[in-house]
């Protein structure tokens, strides 16, 4: 057992976990942040994507101990109170989700895609960048649409800030 200290969604936490505990298990089992999902166990599907120190990480492939001292953001931590993150709003407005299971990972990956490309995205780039997130419901059409829409919204909101 080890004590892992980290910041999750802006809140400092200290959790005693078995050394083999994965970051996703710490989030789901210890912190009850069940929005982060497990879809494959082999780092293929991206349902478990969170941000660790600003980078997207598949939390099923990182030991909780490796996140010691890190700043972790999950799907539960991106809205400002009742105000949705522009990516969340874009997924809703463009029907970018159906069963919702891959959605948290998609949104977390998509936010990172927009950040890395500075909002200058086209369909081909979005499709290539989403390669690490699998969705079985939407056929990706509306996810791609959502990400492109959000890229515009995030540009606008950044300009406003």
């Amino acid at each position, binding site marked *: 057992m080890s004590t892992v200290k980290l910041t999750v969604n802006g809140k400092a936490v200290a959790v005693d976990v*078995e050394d083999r505990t994965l970051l996703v298990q710490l989030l789901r089992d210890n912190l009850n942040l069940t929005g*982060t999902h497990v879809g494959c166990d082999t780092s293929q599907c991206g349902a478990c994507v969170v941000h660790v120190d600003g980078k997207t990480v598949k939390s099923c492939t990182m030991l909780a101990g490796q996140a010691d001292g890190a700043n972790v953001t999950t799907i539960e931590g991106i809205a400002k109170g009742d105000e949705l993150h522009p990516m969340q709003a874009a997924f809703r407005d463009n029907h970018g989700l159906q069963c919702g299971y891959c959605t948290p990972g998609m949104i977390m990956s998509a936010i990172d895609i927009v950040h890395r490309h500075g909002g200058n995205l086209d369909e081909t780039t979005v499709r290539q960048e989403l390669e690490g997130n699998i969705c079985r419901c939407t056929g990706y059409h509306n996810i791609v649409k959502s990400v492109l829409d959000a890229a515009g919204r995030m540009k606008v909101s950044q300009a406003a800030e």
Partner: protein
Amino acid sequence: MGVEGIGARVVRKEDKRFITGKGRYVDDIKLQGMTHAHFIRSPHAHAKVKGIDSSAALKMPGVVAVLTGQQIVDDKVGNLICGWAITSKDGSPMKMGAWPAMAPETVRFVGQAVAVVIAESKNLARDAAEAVVVDYEELPAVADVHAAIKAGAVQLHPEAPGNQVYDWVIGDEGGTDAAFAKAANVVKLDVTNNRLAPNAMEPRAAIADYDSAEEHFTLYTTSQNPHVARLVLSAFYNIAPEHKLRVIAPDVGGGFGSKIFIYPEEMVALWASKKVGRPVKWTGDRTEAFLTDAHGRDHVTHAEMAFDANNKITGLKVKTYANFGAYMSLFSSSVPTYLYATLLSGQYNIPAIHAEVIGVYTNTTPVDAYRGAGRPEASYLIERLMETAARQLKVDPAALRRANFITEFPHQTPVIMAYDVGDFNASLDAAMKAIDYAGFADRKAKAKADGKLRGIGVSCYIEACGIAPSKAVGSLGAGVGLWESAEVRVNPVGTIEILTGSHSHGQGHETTFCQLVAERLGIPISQVSIVHGDTDKVQFGMGTYGSRSAAVGLTAILKAMEKMESKAKKIAAHALEASEADIVIENGEFKVTGTDKAIALPMVALAAYTAHNLPDGMEPGLKESAFYDPTNFTFPAGTYICELEVDPGTGKTSFVNFVAADDFGRLINPMIVEGQVHGGLVQGIGQALLEHAIYDASGQPVTASFMDYAMPRADDVPSFNLSHTTTLCPGNPLGIKGCGEAGAIGASAAVINAITDAIGKNNLEMPATPDRVWRTIHAA
């Protein structure tokens, strides 16, 4: 149409919880004192279980119990059932091999459970499972239908000689033979419909909670049909009587058919929770999903189509071998028979059809309904045949289809189905226009100059949905009725709860079902809630599959609404001192037509519950229910056309354009309908290009993770150009046909027809991987 009524692109009510991480899936639920199950599964495709030694495991930390197949048999938990009886051509019933929830004596596929460890945590259960020693005696195994039906092949079940489940026929053999005898041309085709793993993104999971004081079980499970689960668990598996078993299917992360069935894991969790006296949770991992979720497709077919001198189809002969895997899953028997062969007429006038389907056991994961279930196999076969015929007869493939379209309705096919309505020319025209079919030859020539092989492929599909008229399916062997139920509860403050037996696991019922209420009453959808997925809340229902939730489930809601509205009008008329016949409902008010007299819905509701001033003899309350049984299947149909390029140097396929023109009858929410089509198309494209659940000759699965099984990813597929043509379904009052499966049914033939057009060779099996395409291009 109001802003939130029928036909409006209403943003989904359910989305907020999913986009904020507040969805509640089974694995998100924790119960007090909960234990965790880990199954010990056979590594062999076929073996005798000689013994299980759990003594070391039982001494490990946190282990609560190790339970075996022999114990579940001793406790008289029933064997798994198949709910659709099929009769062979010789009149004998299908041959069912016994399938216990955990194998006491013989395992017949890799992944079949022999024991389960119950422990304080998932990790401890997994650790202990490593210490359980199972003594297997390996037996020879067969993995494909050809090996299984060979003389001298190892026999899976003593009940099924020759590994044959059934040999079933449909149609007129003599008439079909006569048509072939007179044919001007005969087109022949051998096709394999590749085995697929459904892969809903949420793995299956179950939490069972036994209350010994009440002798009552609660099961949280990833189900598309919780009431069917309760019925089967109760009536056939002896878990508990129905009133002592509550089944809850909360948010479910996709199903695609694979979550229709009641699996051994749920049965074991329920049984084990009583045994250990604590809640038991099992969450499958992805490899368990590959090993144990019912697979789809896996047909091997030879077909011949006869044409007269005018290129009119005169007959069709089909012989299909269907691989069922090691056991008959819940609805497996119906898939290659009544859900497949009854659609072999496609969109065409075919005077004579004869089909024979041989169901075969193999040492593989059981096969059952997967998105489309039999209809993709039929549509793929017919559309590959039409394309092959066009090439052989040297006519344009679209023109050959058009010349053979059914144009008059109703149309009785020679294989049971009576198509009620359709306009196949309209959808073909729409798709050809959308893709600029006329300009293709120029684009092909230009691509050739760039060193690319460009092809175009047409697929005109039809399916039977709105499953299904109970009397009809009962006469064909179904063990259940396929109606749907609904209840409308108007609360005393005028808000409304709709209880439905349908189950939403991505389809958006919480929005579309509210849209019907908004349409009828003129109230915002925010005043309506949909209740589903809990057998304690909804009395009974048949669940969601077969594109049935709108055509059947929503019609049940309509019927209940009509009853409620009728009573509410009486109350309004009484309050307004008007005639009931003069009451109309608009914008949430009951109005006396032609006057300014009106009473708002909340006041009518309040009057119903205060009951101070109701019409004489009227019962208080405002709540009505209905059961709706459809009178026919519905027949969604359409045309998909795919244009693509193949790189002859690599065999890689790149999409240029993909158009879909569908006729789904009335659309409740076009945004959601389009989403259903997109998802279906990608599952069809996945089958055509990427996906294949592969076994080696010894029955070992080669594709048991996302590292080995090629799921379609965002950069594998195109965006789509969708359109709709509309003929309203006459079979239900809303005119709905259903849209959930169409994409998966029609897409794969369009892709393969396009690739074979591009490379100029007709024979190409799915999945058309770059390797396979390259070899086909360069084959002598």
